[in-house]
């Protein structure tokens, strides 16, 4: 039998990589996809806690996570295609000049 601590550790590892990825990256696409990794880890941790400890009632938070992930993907592709069309740099440190 697999104890729940292993699932929690996997979830924590994904969360740490996602957060560190946002901090360590300047690429617009990679930063957004890091948030997807964090959402995956959140859904995994939620399922672990609800099914090993609390029981039931996971559908609402889980669907919330999936909805946010899907909406984020749509917004990402919209921004990405816009930036590609106008040949804007995907380096977020260079984006400040476009607001001026």
């Amino acid at each position, binding site marked *: 039998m*697999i*104890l729940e601590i292993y*699932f929690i550790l996997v979830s924590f590892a994904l969360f*740490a990589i996602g957060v560190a990825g946002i901090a360590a*990256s300047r690429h617009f696409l990679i930063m957004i996809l890091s948030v997807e*990794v964090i959402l995956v880890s959140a859904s995994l941790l939620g399922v672990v806690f609800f099914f090993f400890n609390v029981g039931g009632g*996971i*559908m*609402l938070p889980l669907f919330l996570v999936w909805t946010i992930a*899907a909406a984020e993907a749509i917004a990402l592709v919209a921004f990405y295609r816009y930036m590609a069309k106008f040949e804007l740099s995907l380096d977020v440190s260079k984006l400040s000049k476009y607001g001026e």
Partner: protein
Amino acid sequence: MVVFEAFILVSLITVIAAVLMFLLKDVLHIVLSLSMIFLLNSLIFLFMGQTLLAAIQIFVMIGGVSTFLFVGAASMQYSKFSYSRVAILSAMSILLFAVIAYPLTTMNFTGMAQSQFNSASIAQQFEGSTPIFYIMALTMFGVCFGAVLILRRIGAAK
């Protein structure tokens, strides 16, 4: 015991795929590695015995989100540079993992009280939450639609 070893293997590949996202340079490969994370996450759901959630995960994340990302973002082949600072990434992720996993050393995990989510309890869980689902879906749709409108306006102004 084979199941446990398979779980360790799947977990390792998941973490490796997450790290590869910051090492690869091609957008297509990055999205492919994210799709691999989604797929392996559904496998981890299977290891927990949650077959229905694993199926929903595959339908939503692999069938919907990953396909959309592939078609929308990765097909353009626009960017091929990697701006992730690997040293900061590795140091920060290891430090963060140690900080958030340290409280687990004082906890007891017995592996008891595992319940399985099945289709019989779907109606019970959805009951009373239907308006919230609708509000959530409409809000997300509004956000996405507004984002596209704003981008079109910005593009027209430019």
